[in-house]
């Protein structure tokens, strides 16, 4: 009896792959955000969980609704919708009505990702598009901040969270300004220790600088993150503040205050580094980071708003294709002399 040959496949080399896949990289970012998410629950209680849940639900719903039927399951499984929702949620004020958060998540995916052609094709960071949408639509709710630790403990939900759609939300009794707002409008500095651990007013995720850095280190170790971008953003901000401090240390923010206040760490580590919307070339990453850092400081110090991370990143997102185009690396063997 003649033994039959196996039916041979003709897949082309390389047959080997390193183990990383895109959904795994997305999951890594979510894992990296878990400590900071935990901190937001610690400081803002159940409200934080509800808000994050609402954002994620909005994002995932948009993802599901706009996917074609064949790839519907896939677009949910690659976890990018969840990541966008989570990132958006972490930039929101804790007292925001839930329906707004839901709408923001939905808009982030729909306007920030789907209309561009889906994952990998968008020009702007979807989470920040969602936030920009909310800030333009609900400016008051988006700039009303509550103090940490709700009065009634973990299960006490800020009443404004439960406001119904299109009703004027009740402003909570205990409101608190963010450190950046305090500094800009009342020239009042917040102690650095409070800034680092996050015992301050502000968005859900921008409160604990140290935990955000911890997640960033995890991403760097997993090679999911272009270290050049956070390093250049933070470096630029520190340098910018230090130079301003030479002129008038009272009027301008100190370098470390600039780094740990507001959404800078969240933006620099998790949003500016979104690979889809940041330059892919190494030199481009430096330019992108320095540009973002300069814009952040310009808006914070000389602009009308206390915080500028979102607009800085979105503006640099728009410049990304151009930066990429003009920063292609030197190809091996190009521009070298014939003789050694």
């Amino acid at each position: 009896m003649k033994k039959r040959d196996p039916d041979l496949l003709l897949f082309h080399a390389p047959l080997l792959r390193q183990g990383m896949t895109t959904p795994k990289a997305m999951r890594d970012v979510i894992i990296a955000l878990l400590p900071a998410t935990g901190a937001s629950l610690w400081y803002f209680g159940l409200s934080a969980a509800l808000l994050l849940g609402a954002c994620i639900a909005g994002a995932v719903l948009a993802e599901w609704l706009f996917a074609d039927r064949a790839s519907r399951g896939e677009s949910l499984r690659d976890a990018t919708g969840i990541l966008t929702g989570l990132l958006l949620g972490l930039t929101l004020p804790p007292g925001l009505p839930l329906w707004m958060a839901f709408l923001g998540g939905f808009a982030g995916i729909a306007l920030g990702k789907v209309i561009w052609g889906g994952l990998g094709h968008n020009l702007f960071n979807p989470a920040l598009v969602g936030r920009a949408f909310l800030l333009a639509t609900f400016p008051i709710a988006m700039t009303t901040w509550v103090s940490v630790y709700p009065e009634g403990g973990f299960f006490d939900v800020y009443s404004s969270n439960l406001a119904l759609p299109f009703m004027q939300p009740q402003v909570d009794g205990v409101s608190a300004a963010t450190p950046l707002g305090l500094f800009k409008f009342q020239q009042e500095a917040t102690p650095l220790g409070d800034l680092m651990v996050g015992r301050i007013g502000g968005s859900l995720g921008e409160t604990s600088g140290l935990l955000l850095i911890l997640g960033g280190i995890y991403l760097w170790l997993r090679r999911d993150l272009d270290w050049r971008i956070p390093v250049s953003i933070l470096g630029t901000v520190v340098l910018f503040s230090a130079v301003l401090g030479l002129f008038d240390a009272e009027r301008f923010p100190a370098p470390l205050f600039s780094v740990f206040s507001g959404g800078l760490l969240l933006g620099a580590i998790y949003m500016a580094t979104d690979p889809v919307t940041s330059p892919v070339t190494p030199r481009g990453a430096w330019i992108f980071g320095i540009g973002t850092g300069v814009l952040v400081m310009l808006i914070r110090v000389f602009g009308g708003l206390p915080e500028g991370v979102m607009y800085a990143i979105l503006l640099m997102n728009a410049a990304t294709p151009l930066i990429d185009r003009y920063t292609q690396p030197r190809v091996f063997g190009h521009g070298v002399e014939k003789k050694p």
Partner: protein
Amino acid sequence: MKAFRLLRRSFEHGVHPAHHKDQTENLPIQRVPFGRHFIMPLGQHIGVPSRAVVAAGDAVERGQLIAEPGGFVSTALHSPVKGVVSKVGDFRGVDGRYAPAIAIEADPFATQEVDPDAAPDWRSLSLEAFIEAVQMAGIVGMGGAAFPSHVKLSVPDGIRIRHLLINGAECEPYLTTDHRLMVERPEALLEGAEILRQKLGAEETVIGIEANKPDAIETISRHLSPDQPVRIVKLKVKYPQGAEKMMIKSVFGTEVPAGRLPRDVEVNVNNVGTVVAIADYFLRGMPLIERVVTVAGPGVTYPANLIVPLGTSVRDVVGFCGGLKPGTREIIMGGPMMGRPIASLDVPVLKGCSGVLVFTEEQTARRKEYPCIRCGRCLEACPYFLNPSRLARLSKARMFDEMKDYNVFDCVECGCCTFACPSNIPIVQLIRTAKDDLNNRKEPDA
């Protein structure tokens, strides 16, 4: 920075696949018994196919010329066995296409020896005669590309070769042919190196070996004689360390200008197998009629390093290794990063075939492709500093002309980008498609 780079002894970028060499790296080279049927394709090197000089019914000796070079970039072919030519015609080749070949039936009772004095005395040959002798011995680059060696040795006037670089990197996973040759035949390697060095008038011989072959480094060091200017350079284990321009960068710190050849930086690079083949011809009279092949991979029953007469079918080679395990899905000729899949077990082993690798489910599982998220891993992998992400996107959009602005023709198709891509995008295939299209478009005007 430059000093730091020299310390590391490597080019920049590249990837680190698991090397999977433990299956065969300690197995001595064995000889495969001669089979009955041999098929020698006329086009088993890069360039013009050879021209057959025998016809069906002719008796041939082992090592006898059966096809002469079809042009300058072409080499001779010799019969791998004593036997009778059964047919000169079209046979299915490794790439699945029919191509001209010479089929030989082996004489089962022959002793299969070659005339040890067949080669001319290399010392008395002029450089031109030496180069012609290399061509008539059918010697090609044995690392996988099968580029005729005499073409590399033909250096135009005004260019001097100062360094003879011997490529013992063997950076492809699984393959251990050069490794075993270095361990088992260091004398032949050094003999061949000395022949080439003297003929080229080079000042020194440098043998580049990846650090994962300490036994090869140690064995060759032991055989070095003080009057032969040879030094061994230990290289970082990294793919594609064995790409000749990368190895020149690693060893000398020099970049070969784009579109130029190693000779433009005064270097001549030859693979370990090629250098041994030079020694075997000029000192032992054997033209290129057999080569060392690594048979490995998860689907092989008994992995081995084998001396295989050219023209032996993959079926005979695999059969000698105990056959295929159940679950075999794919067979690659060459290495897993740049080799070619074969469609049938009846294709012959050729001059450029460094490995027969048998893969199973795990390596051939269909990988889901995700959209490119521009993570930049391919840019960090590409040893040529191209932008594979951009190239793949343009190729998908069939914007092939724009790809020229992104230096698509500098790509050597090493596959690093595809290896590194977390979205499983077949980047190197997309680039190859574009290059083919651009090349085919060019031809009518030329």
